[in-house]
Each structure stands twice: as C-alpha cells, then as structure tokens.
C-alpha cells in the first residue's frame, strides 16, 4: 500500500464518521424542533395562547430559528463528509464551495472578515476530486484571512471558462487599489501538490493582498 492509498482510506474513514455525526445531529435537531413545535401547538390549540407569559412565543421562535441554522450547517457538514466517499466523482463546484464557505465562515468572522459569494449559476459539473479542491481552496483562502485587515471582505466567484471553471477570491479593496501592495507570499508545497493533482492552475502563482487568486480547474482526463 502506498502512502497515497493510506491517505485515501484515512480520508474515507474521517468522512464516514463525520457523515454519521451529522446524521445523529439531525435526529437531535428533529427532537428539539418537534418538542418546541408541540409546546407551540399546545399553546395555540388550548385557546389560551401564551396569556400570562408572553416570552414563550418569542423563545419558541428563537429555538425554531436556531434549529434552522443548525440544520443548515449540518446539511453542509453532511455533504462535506460525503465528498470523501470517493477520490474522484462528478460534482458541482458551486455546491462544493457553498458548503466550504459556510464551514470556514466562522474563521473569517473571528478576524472580522466578511465572505461574499458571486457564483455563476449554470456551470458545467466536473469530474475531479471535490475533497481535494476544497482542501486546495482552503489552503489558498486562509493566508488571505491572515494578511487582510479587519473589516475586510473577500468575494468568492465562479465563472465558466470554456470547459473549465475558474474560482476567484478577491478582497473588496481590489477595486480601490491601483497597484497592489508588495505583500505577497508563496503557495506552500502541499497546496501546489494539491493543485497539481487536480490538474488545475493558479493565477497569479501566489496570493497577493488586493489581488487575490484565481484557480482554474477542469475535469480530469
């Protein structure tokens, strides 16, 4: 067994555990949702409403709102976990990025950095490694967080370019900066290897403040 084979098996194992965890979470959320719903029902159908305790409907609304948010995150987690089922598969770049943005948004928020998306709706599906693409994108995005100042915003875009899909990440400062500052940094060897395995290309070959990066990826031959 090669090191690669072992890594693939390991990734599949992590994915399986994550998928199981997200399934369990949905069951817990379903119970919270139904229990809150039943309280609401009992108040509504009793004919008395929440007379005497007006806070109850507000609290129930808050529970419902949080259940919906947690459910959305769990759906993303489940999809993310299943990316690891197969090394290569057909997938939508927009969906892969949508869930990744949702999952890394917390890291950005801790640095007061906003994430926005602007995805082209009808992109070709790709036959490639979605898990590796997510990893490469994460490895490119994270340095961006580190160098951007607080209150910055990163806009993540997708566009069709022939048979390929370009994934862009630019800071919102880009439009106001005539010439990019000198601050730039090389892409790690790990990221370069991931990009190479995807058969993708990175333009420009590094991440620069005020410019960002563009990753061009297509289906594997």
């Amino acid at each position, binding site marked *: 067994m090669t090191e690669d084979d072992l890594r693939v098996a390991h990734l599949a194992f992590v994915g399986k555990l994550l998928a199981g965890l997200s*399934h369990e979470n949905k069951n817990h959320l379903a119970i919270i949702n*139904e229990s809150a719903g039943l309280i609401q029902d009992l108040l509504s159908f009793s004919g008395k409403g929440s007379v005497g305790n007006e806070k109850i409907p507000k609290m129930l609304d808050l529970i419902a709102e949080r259940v919906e948010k947690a459910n959305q995150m769990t759906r993303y987690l489940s999809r993310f976990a299943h990316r690891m089922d197969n090394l290569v598969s057909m997938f939508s770049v927009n969906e892969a990025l949508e869930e990744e943005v949702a999952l890394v948004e917390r890291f950005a928020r801790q640095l007061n950095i906003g994430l926005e998306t602007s995805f082209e709706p009808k992109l070709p599906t790709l036959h490639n490694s979605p898990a590796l693409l997510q990893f490469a994108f994460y490895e490119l995005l994270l340095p961006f967080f580190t160098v951007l100042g607080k209150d910055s915003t990163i806009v993540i875009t997708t566009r069709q370019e022939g048979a390929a899909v370009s994934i862009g990440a630019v800071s919102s400062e880009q439009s106001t900066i005539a010439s990019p500052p000198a601050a730039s940094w090389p892409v790690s060897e790990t990221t370069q290897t991931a990009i190479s395995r995807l058969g993708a290309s990175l333009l420009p070959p590094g991440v620069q403040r005020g410019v960002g990066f563009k990753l061009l990826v297509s289906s594997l031959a």
Partner: protein
Amino acid sequence: MKKIKVMIVDDELEFANTLQERLEIRGFEAVVAGCAGEALTLVRQYRPNVVLLDLKMPDMSGIDVLTEIKEFDPGIEVIILTGHGGGADKKTGMERGAFDYIMKPVDIKELVSKLHQAVQLHVAAQPGS
C-alpha cells in the same frame, strides 16, 4: 369525516411520540412503531393510509421495510422521513415506490401538506374515483 391514519416508523421514540401528538392535534389518527419488525406487524393490523418511515433502524433498513410494505399493499403511501442525506437512498426509495423523501427536521405544515397529497393520490388511484 374519516381520519387519515398515519403510522410513524422511527427508533427515535422521543421524536416519533412528539410527532404523533402533533399530528393528532391536527386531526390525524397516528400510531408509532419503534422498529422495523414492529412496523411490519403493525402495518397489517392497523392498515394506515400513510407511513412515515425512517431509513436507519437497528433491526432492518428502511428501504427493506418500504419494499415489504409495498408488497403487502401498494396502496399504502410511504413518505421517507429521515436525517440521512438523500443521494443513493433517496433514489432507491423513490424507485421502490415511496411517495416522497423528506429530511428531518421537518416543518409540520409541509408534512401535513404531504400527508394530504399522499392520501389524495391514493383516492385518485381507486377504481371509479
């Protein structure tokens, strides 16, 4: 007016019992089966109009339960109600005759609407209707 009979099949009893109560409040008649074996016994005794079926149960897969229910009586509509994320199970479930596939947690209004749709489909399929 005759009540719509619903059988909830789920090993998460806290979920199933709460949902049962919410459906009863809304005028449905509902029973709970806590495992696949109990569901296959109860479906013969209770003769529900609609089954709400979880996919992941310890004694048997929901897809196998769906197949047996449909073999017993194709007129019983089955709605898969699960936390398991779509994909192959959704495709298989729909191919084996499920009326719909709904993810937990579910909005009660959406579920009630699906139950009515399922029953209407069954009524429409009756000879002479």
